[in-house]
């Protein structure tokens, strides 16, 4: 078996779907944020695999920018979780329904 683009795409799809399952099924806000990181990471892998396939390093620049956005998202997301914990003494997302209905 020779490793080609398809293998990397399927691996990226697996990791992305694990992240989706984590976001949809877990109740701990920190683990949800970690699952979002897993999804971003899967997409980064797909970007780099396509960059290798087309022989064009632009995909790697895109991964750099996606890492910047991920860092910003984590900083703000964790700050929100800290505020949430201060208000509710809990980060169970079932108890956070202020904006729900």
């Amino acid at each position, binding site marked *: 078996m020779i490793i*080609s683009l398809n293998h990397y795409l399927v691996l990226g799809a697996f*990791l992305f779907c*694990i992240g989706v*399952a984590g976001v949809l099924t877990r109740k701990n806000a*920190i683990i949800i944020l970690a699952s979002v990181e897993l999804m971003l990471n899967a997409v980064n892998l797909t970007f780099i695999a396509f960059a290798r396939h087309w022989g064009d390093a632009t995909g790697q620049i895109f991964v750099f920018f996606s890492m910047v956005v991920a860092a*910003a998202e984590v900083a703000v997301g964790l700050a929100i979780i800290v505020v949430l914990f201060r208000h509710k003494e*809990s980060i169970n997302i079932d108890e956070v329904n202020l904006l729900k209905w």
Partner: protein
Amino acid sequence: METFFFILFAVVAIFSGLMVILKKNPIASVMFLILALFATAALYVMLMAPFMAAIQIIVYAGAIMVLFLFVVMLLNLSKIQEGGVSALKIIGALVAGGIMVAIAVVVRSIAIPADSGFLRELPAEYGTVESIGRSMFITYLLPFEIASFLLLAAIIGAVVLAKKKLE
């Protein structure tokens, strides 16, 4: 050889990804996420992106995951009752499986011969720090500056949110 390492790191990545969403303890989850990030960094090296692999380990596995661990330990969380199997969890798993099937169909339908490996010849400077830096600071200078503004805004937002007094 390449096949062996691809399978090794793919199995490590998928296993640790599953552990991230299955472990009850948030610290164990974050630790397995770090393992998943290391496995993908190894795959980046195999895809001729050594600079991105280094950035992944330094920025992601180093800085961002330390932030995660810091918050987990700061909050001193008691275990959250996840409950048993509920309708919502089944729906969530079904949605994830459906997305997997959809992506698999799309991957199968694109016209890339499956067993040929990567065909394209790469230029000698592909993926080096020099070529990445050149295109980042010349071709993509404006997005680079916008990214720095995004990070500044995120820092200010995080500080404002996490300040003690909200009033």
